[in-house]
């Protein structure tokens, strides 16, 4: 009833090719952006920003990058933590070594360094697929772990190996308060998200999806596998590198190489699997789920267990979190391989017919 497209006629190709062709969708997205940019900074508490919203925004950016590689191009990657690390440390070096370097160009150049790294470690994808490629990208993860621990040049010869940034500012405005950090991350997410959506809707996105579905057939009809796979690695690593720079500069402030360990890679992969492979929307759902679930469990589980008279320790909550993640991933892969995004789009389909069942 509310979601019908009756009366909305498109009279030119431009209207037909909009990301959100339906008016109700455009209104909904406009409202969402208004809430995200205006209402949330006014209403949310400091804790909500620092613990939930900022990690959610940065992680959805990273999940977006992983989704392009794993979901759209079908190249399984367990090295996302390494790309984040390269993005973070290169942004750090560019920011610290070049005096007067502004923040956003440093982050973008960090992303480009991650692109180079990603293309290098994406070369195995031209020869191997599936599990073997996953292992090859895991090698990237271990290599990055080693590189930032042992090569002191990357950490500006800090004796402890721990680095930190401070006094961040954009166009003279200091990025100190939680609101300013949130808005910076959100703006970058919006810009890169729109770019990513347009890429996957365009020719190159269709090439990626063709490679994912049947790479031999794609090669037969004239899609160059090397170009498609390496461009997927390049775009994905850029996005993940910028997200890594944001994670380090904005969220952590001070970090050591262990911040980008294989745990981070697995977390990103889980986000994409639970959220939905091959869907931009799915990255956001997955990131929200993975960021919010530990905190929700921490608050909710002791109370819930208390209802049954069972005392649950912090260790118990931590173990429960791992068990629930594992269980959910198995459940999603069996029942709904396209993740939460598919549930969302099914919901929208039903909504278009509501109140009629079919």
């Amino acid at each position: 009833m509310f979601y019908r497209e009756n009366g909305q006629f498109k009279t030119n190709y431009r209207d037909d090719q909009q990301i959100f062709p339906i008016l109700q969708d455009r209104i909904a997205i406009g409202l969402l952006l208004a809430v995200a940019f205006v209402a949330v900074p006014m209403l949310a508490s400091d804790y909500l920003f620092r613990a939930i919203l900022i990690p959610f925004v940065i992680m959805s950016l990273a999940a977006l990058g992983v989704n392009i590689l794993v979901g759209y191009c079908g190249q399984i990657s367990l090295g996302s933590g390494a790309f984040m690390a390269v993005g973070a440390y290169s942004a750090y070096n560019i920011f610290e070594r070049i005096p007067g370097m502004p923040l956003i160009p440093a982050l973008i150049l960090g992303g480009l360094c991650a692109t180079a790294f990603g293309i290098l470690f994406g070369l195995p994808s031209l020869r191997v697929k599936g599990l073997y490629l996953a292992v090859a990208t895991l090698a990237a993860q271990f290599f990055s772990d080693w590189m930032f621990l042992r090569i002191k040049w990357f950490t500006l010869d800090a004796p402890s190996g721990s680095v930190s940034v401070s006094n961040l500012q954009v166009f003279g405005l200091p990025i100190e308060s939680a609101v300013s950090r949130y808005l910076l991350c959100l703006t970058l997410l919006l810009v890169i998200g729109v770019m990513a959506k347009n890429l996957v809707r365009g020719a190159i996105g269709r090439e990626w999806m063709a490679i994912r579905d049947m790479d031999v057939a794609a090669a037969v009809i004239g899609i160059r596998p090397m170009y498609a796979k390496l461009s997927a690695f390049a775009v994905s690593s850029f996005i993940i590198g910028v997200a890594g720079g944001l994670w380090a500069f904005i969220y952590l402030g001070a970090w050591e190489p262990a911040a980008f360990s294989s745990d981070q890679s697995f977390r990103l992969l889980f986000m994409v699997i639970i959220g939905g492979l091959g869907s931009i929307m799915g990255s956001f759902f997955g990131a929200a789920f993975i960021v919010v679930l530990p905190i929700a469990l921490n608050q909710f589980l002791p109370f819930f267990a208390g209802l049954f008279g069972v005392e649950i320790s912090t260790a118990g909550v931590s173990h429960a979190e791992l068990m629930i993640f594992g269980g959910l991933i198995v459940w999603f892969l069996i029942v709904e391989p396209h993740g939460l995004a598919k549930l969302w789009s099914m919901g929208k389909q039903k909504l278009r017919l509501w109140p009629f069942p079919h």
Partner: protein
Amino acid sequence: MRSGKLVLALATIAMSASVVTSAVAQTKEQFFPLLSYRTGPYAPNGVPWANGKQDYLKLINARDGGVNGVKMTYEECETGYATDRGVECYERLKSRPGVAVFDPQATGITFALTEKVPTDKIPLITLGYGLSVSQDGQAFKWNFPLMGSYWTGADILIQHIGKKEGGLDKLKGKKITLVYHDSPFGKEPIPLLQERAKMHGFDLQMIPVTAPGVDQKSAWLQVRQSRPDFVLLWGWGVMNSTALKEAQATGYPRDKMYGVWWAGAEPDVKDVGEGAKGYNALALNTSGKEPKVIQDIMKYVHDKGQGTGPKDEVGQVLYTRGVIIQMLSIEAVRRAQERFGKGKVMTGEQVRWGMENLALDQKRLDALGFSGIMRPLSTSCADHMGSSWARVQTWDGKKWAFSSDFIQADDQILKPMVKSGADKYLADKKMTRRPPADCQS
């Protein structure tokens, strides 16, 4: 729709419970956030530490009714020794009313929180760990590496080895290897060891062990090849017991191994047992069930069934260290109350002042029940460490026994290093030292 009714019922119970708890009268409470790790590879050492802290808080409430009537409350948050989870726990707990002080229990988390606490105005107590340069209180207003840092620890070990050899000059030409956890924690002592190596002419070799330190075969094969005269072990968690097992496997004499005070506790040697006989480690504090405060904990907390962990953990090395950390935090609160109002809940800034003006002489330690556990400690504006003494203890297969007198870290060497390190940190962050007037705040 039975499931719908059940969900509705649960929701109403949840809401009414939250309403009831918030309507409870506001009693005066000082809140201690307890960042701990009970999961992961560092849990064997993190658990007794966390239990010691909680038990002491319970003791103060049960035996003394709090500090001048202000009850001590606490909440644990699981960090798993991971920096990002530590930061998340900090953000969650820092805005609780009455928050007093943070003990991150990890050097990596300390580095991250050192950036945040000046803005949030909550002191950090990093007893025996953290940034070594933060003992300079005029540069680091909010950090308190009480009782020692990794530089003082390394210094004391070198002094002890020198004494055993018959003089520091006898170290010339000897080979000392540092087997360290490849993280900020493990890398901290390197500058001081390099300085001492220059001074005395010994050959310093450094062998990093990838975190968490479960796989050390290659490290110990390197040790076997190079045959150093002494091995310094800078490990934490499972790395310590693994190192001792590997040392036994490669045949390196354990009595030539010296661990930092975080590598000298029961969880590290119990599994290895007789194989670790002769292993030495620094001891910041004593252990055992004899001290009065430990007996009080048994009486007022464990015998009443309120103990946080198992009874046989009470009195162990790390448990006692946790008790000490909590005691120092509470004494800082007490000292702050003396200036800012007895019986009132202290803010973070006030607790910081209390921590900067601790004066625990032997009489006070005896009154608190800590006689024999630690040496007297007194902090000041410039000195956030308070005391830089430690001993060496040796594992005899069944228990730890002291094998040296108290040694004090050499200030002649440390003072210039701390000052230049602190100056460099301030220059990097574009901050300045505290003016002398600030010491009165």
